[in-house]
C-alpha cells in the first residue's frame, strides 16, 4: 500500500478555470518536491492534500484512508495527529509565546507531553533562545524556523510545506534539508514540499512539476 496516493484530483475555484492534478503516489520513506511557477496551483494542491479544500473529484489517501470522505471532526483529528503544515506566510496563534505555539500543536493533537522532543527540535533549528518571545517579536527567518518546528512538533507522518525556505539563507537552507532527512530517517516523516526555490531541487529525487 502506498504511503500517499493522490488520484484524479480536480478542483475549481468559483468563477475560475478548473484545476486538474496528475495522479501521483509516494511510498514510505520518500519525499516529494512540487515545483511550479506562481499561480500554477501548488498551494491549492497542498491544501487539497491537507483536507483544507474539498476536491470536486478525486481522492487523497494516506495509508489507504481517503481524507476526502472523512467528516470534519475526523479530518481535524487526522490532520492534527498525522500532518504537519508549513505555510508560505508564517501564521501563529497570537498573544502567546512561540514555545506555547509549539505546545499548542501537540495539545490540539491530543499529546500532553513531548517537551524533550520540542527542545531537540528547537536546538536543531537554533531557536532555543527565542522560545519565550511572541511571534511578532521574531524576524521573518526566525518565524519560518518556528513554522518548521511547529510542523514537526507533533512528530507527524507527513509534512506539507509551502515555500518553506523562502526566507532563509543558504546555511539555514542546508540545515533545513538535513532536518528533512533526519526526520525521515528518525521519525519516518515524509515531506511534500511545494516550492520554486532552486536550491532545494538538488536534494529531491521525486519532483512533481505543475
Amino acid at each position, binding site marked *: 500500500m502506498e504511503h500517499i496516493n493522490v488520484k484524479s484530483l480536480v478542483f475549481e475555484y468559483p468563477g475560475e478555470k478548473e484545476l486538474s492534478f496528475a495522479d501521483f503516489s509516494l511510498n514510505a520513506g520518500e519525499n516529494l518536491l512540487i515545483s511550479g511557477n506562481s499561480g500554477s496551483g501548488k498551494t491549492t494542491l497542498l491544501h487539497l492534500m491537507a483536507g483544507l*479544500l474539498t476536491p470536486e473529484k478525486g481522492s487523497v489517501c494516506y495509508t489507504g484512508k481517503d481524507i476526502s470522505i472523512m467528516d470534519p*471532526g475526523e479530518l481535524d483529528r487526522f490532520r492534527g495527529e498525522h500532518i504537519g503544515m508549513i505555510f508560505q506566510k508564517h*501564521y501563529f496563534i497570537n*498573544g502567546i509565546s512561540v514555545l506555547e505555539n509549539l505546545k499548542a500543536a501537540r495539545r490540539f*493533537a*491530543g499529546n*500532553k507531553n513531548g517537551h524533550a522532543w520540542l527542545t531537540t527540535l528547537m536546538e536543531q533549528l537554533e531557536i532555543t533562545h527565542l522560545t519565550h518571545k511572541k511571534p511578532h517579536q521574531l524576524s521573518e527567518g526566525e518565524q519560518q524556523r518556528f513554522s518548521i518546528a511547529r510542523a514537526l512538533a507533533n512528530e507527524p507522518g507527513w509534512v506539507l510545506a509551502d515555500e518553506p525556505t523562502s526566507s532563509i539563507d543558504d546555511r539555514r537552507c542546508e540545515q533545513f534539508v538535513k532536518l528533512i532527512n533526519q526526520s525521515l530517517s528518525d521519525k519516518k516523516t515524509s515531506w511534500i514540499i511545494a516550492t520554486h526555490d532552486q536550491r532545494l531541487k538538488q536534494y529531491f529525487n521525486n519532483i512533481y512539476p505543475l
Partner: protein
Amino acid sequence: MNYQHMYILKLAIQKLRSRPGSTFFSVLLFAIGCSIISLIIIAEKNLQQSVERNFSGIDLVVGAKGSPLQLILSSVLHADYPTGNIPLAQAEQITRNPLVKKAIPLALGDNYRGFRIVGAPVDYPLLYDAQLTEGSWHNQVLDAVVGANIQRSTGLQLGDQFYGVHGFRETGHAHPEFLYTVTGIMERSGGIMDNLIITPVESVWKVHGDHYHDDHQHDDHKHDHHPHNNDLDHAHLHNNDPQNPNEDPQLLEIKEKIEAGEDISFEEMQLYQEFLLQSETPSVHADLEITAMLLQFRSPAGMIQLTRTINESTRLQAASPALEINRLMSLTSTGFDLLSVLAWIIIIISGVNIFIHLWNVLRQEMQDIALMRVMGAGRATVFMLLLWQGIILAAAGWLAGTILARLVWLLLPSFHFMTHTSLMMLFAGEATLLIFALITGIIASLIPAWNAYNTDVHYSLTRKQ
C-alpha cells in the same frame, strides 16, 4: 473537565490577556452594571438585617405626635430627630393596660462626639441581648455604658468621664457641669447598641433640668406607691395600680377577659383604655418628660387595638416599627427598582460590548482560528475558545462588580444603624446575578463562536490582509 478543555480555558485567558486594553474596558463596563445591582442587594440586605436586629421585640413605639416614620427612625434606629417629648405621666397611663407586657422609656437629647446618649433602663440594652465586655450596667445617675463602636472610636475606658453636647451634632451647647462616668462597655453586637451610650433616664432629666423636669419638684415630691431607694426609681413605669375597675361590671368583664387572654373588641379596648386614661392616679411625675416609650405586647391583637386607641383618644402617637419600616422599604424599593433598571441596561450594553470585543477578536484573529483547525483543533474546540472568552469577561466583570460594590458601600457615608458584618459573604441575589452575567456572556459570544465554528480554513489562510 478533561485536559483539552482545561487547555482551551487557559488559552482563552491568554488570548484575553494579550489584549489588555479592550479586555479591561469590557470587564469595567460589565463591572459597573454588576456593581450597581450588587450595591442595591447589599443595601437592601443590610437594611433588612438592621431592621430585624434592631426591631427585636418592639411592637409599638409611643411618642409625640408627628411623623410616625420619624418617631420610629429616631427612637428605634436612632437615625432621625425625635418628634418631641411626651409627659411621663401619660406614658405611664398607657403602660397600665394589662395587654402591655413590657414598657421601656427613652430620653434623648445629647450626644458625645456624635454618638447619642440615650436615657433608658437596663431593660433597653437587654432587649437586644447586649452583653458587657467589662464593667457593670448603669446604676446611678450619670453612669454611662458605652457601645463597642464608641469605645473603639473614642477610646473611652472604664472610669473615664465625659460630658454631653446638646443635640445630635458634635458641635453644640455643652454640659461640662454634668460629667458622665463610664461604668460599662458593651460587646460588639452588630446592632444599634454598638453606637449608643446608655445612661439612666434620670441622667437626662438631671442634665436637662429645665427641659425635662424641675429637679426641685422632683426632690420634693412624695411617693405613695413605694419608697424610692435612689433616683433610678423614677424611671420605673408605674403600671400596676390603676383605679379599681370592679365598680363597673362592664369594665370588670373586660378586665377578666384581658387577664384570661381572651380577645376583646375595639370598643371594649377603647372603653377600658379611656377608663385607664381617666384614672386620676396621683402622678409623681407631673413635670417629667420622656422622648418615647417602647412597648411589648402580650398579644398582637392587643397592639392593634391599643394603637388605634392611643392615636384616636390621646395627644400621643403610637407607631408600629414593622408597619413604618415596611412603608420605608416600599419607598426605597421604588428608587432601588429604578437603579436596577439602569444597571440592567448597563449590563445589556456590556453584553453588546463583549459581543463587539469578540467579533473584533474574531475578525482580527480569524487566521489564528484557522491555524488551530490546521493543528487539529476541532470546530467545537474553537467554538469553546470564543465562548470561554465571553464567559470569562462576564465572570470577571461580575467579580469586579461585587468587589467594587463592597468598596463603594464601605466608602459611602454609613447609617450607624446599619452594619458591614455581612460584606464578606455572597448574597443570594448576587449569585443569581452571576448566573445572569454568565448567560449574558454566553449569548454575547455565541455569534462569534458560531463563526469560529464555521471558519473556512483555506480562505482564512490565503486571503489578502
